[in-house]
């Protein structure tokens, strides 16, 4: 199903500039701590697990699994909001796109696709794998 929804641009800050620079190249990176080795979400400059500032923007597999979802059928352009648990560990809020909303289920495997925004970098969304 084509997705023509207009997505508002994410607010890019100095803290997350590297993430959005990668997104402009359609590269999905996940912030990972070089000190403790853990990936986290949403991206931050200070590791939420160990406090280190040695955060690396590591290329992610783009694979994940639907943790939960909700279809907004009454929106002007219906959409599916979801949490996707990434293969790298953390779960992230996102949209499931290019899909039949009635066929969505918790536990389905998904993979990342970038979706253009109105006047900012594209944002990572997911479609069924």
């Amino acid at each position, binding site marked *: 199903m084509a997705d023509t929804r207009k*997505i*508002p*641009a*994410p*607010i*890019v*800050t100095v*803290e*997350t500039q590297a993430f959005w620079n990668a997104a402009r190249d359609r590269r999905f990176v996940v912030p990972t701590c070089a000190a403790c080795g853990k*990936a*986290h*979400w*949403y*991206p*931050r400059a200070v590791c*939420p*697990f160990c406090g280190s500032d040695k955060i690396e923007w590591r290329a992610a597999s783009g694979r994940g699994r639907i*943790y*939960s*979802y*909700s*279809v*907004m*059928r*009454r*929106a002007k352009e219906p*959409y599916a*909001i*979801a*949490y996707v648990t*990434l293969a790298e*560990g*953390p*779960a*992230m*809020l*996102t*949209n499931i796109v290019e899909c039949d909303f009635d066929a969505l289920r*918790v*536990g389905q495997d998904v993979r990342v696709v970038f979706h253009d*925004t109105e006047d900012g970098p594209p*944002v990572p*969304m997911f479609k069924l794998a």
Partner: protein
Amino acid sequence: MSIKGKAYIAGIFEHPTRHAPDKSVAQLHAEVALGALADAGLTRDDIDGFFCAGDAPGPGPASMAEYLNLPKLRHVDSTELGGSSYVALAAHAAEAIALGKCNVALITLAGRPRSEGVATGTTPRLRDPNQPEAAFEFPYGLTTANGYALAAMRHMYQYGTTSEQLAWIKVAASHHAQHNPRAMLPDVVTVADVVNSPVIADPLHRLDCCVISDGGGALIVVKPEIARSLKKPPVKIIGAGETVKHLSAGTFDLTTSGAARSGPAAFAEAGVKPADIKYASIYDSFTITVLIQIEDLGFCEKGAGGKFVADGNLISGVGKLPFNTDGGGLCNNHPANRGGMTKVIEAVRQLRGEAHPAVQVKDCALALAQGTGMQLGTRHCSATLIMERE
């Protein structure tokens, strides 16, 4: 040190309005403040502590302290915990009183989202661009309703909870609301009515959602000597807990709420168990909010909430855990989109024996009020308060 027995709720007032296009927010705050003072039998000059949250107009407590012209303030607290604020502020007032920082505390809530036409539940809102998560949530169309729906969908997946079980929560609230002449939704509804109402955000239906109303409420919390000198039956604060539950950097479990932490803390301080509670006010922004909090407070096992709430178990005089006997946010009102205040107020009514006779719990000596503020499916505040009839 504990707050147990150090402070009493001496005054309560729930604004009668549900739609107030002819009043300002500050005016509503003043009306509920005066109402609670009258209920307690105290005056404005007695107030030396003022407590409010994010609904109070202006920064922190300053504008409303001036509007109310409070002359003797020596303690203020404007902790913002969303809809749960007033449950927590009652405990904060008890803490301040226990420490001698004030003797008579006023807590107010008021707002008019209905008159102002706020698209409360279904429109994404960017509240503060400096919120660090904003860029990773706002583009995806996160709203209040779907934020709760994400928790509901996961609970269904993980524990087999059904829409029909969730519907029983609304059914129970409606059985109580039929006796409340001010309730916005006074008609008794059935499970079929709920599950056949339009889907707002899968799997939540319109009747799984609370109402949107104007209004407000206020509490007066006082030290024991003052409580015993007043006419109303004294209601003792004996335990409290509060927390923030969040997404833990992506490692969260959406089927658990902050009540899993604030509840046990309150029970421990009070020295009572969930089975001792005669009446519970449980925050009911959505049906799923109630179900998850009931589990987390220990009224049933985690995952068993669906079975627990079914078949009228929350209806006063019918079930084991009478809840929200004023009709709650689901049927009565949800002033300023913040239900914590009315949760405390109805618990105090029950302990005083002032609830509607059709829903009054017999020999109600111990009650709990539970608040969840902000959003179950992302980050939220939780506050639990346990109160006892003297």
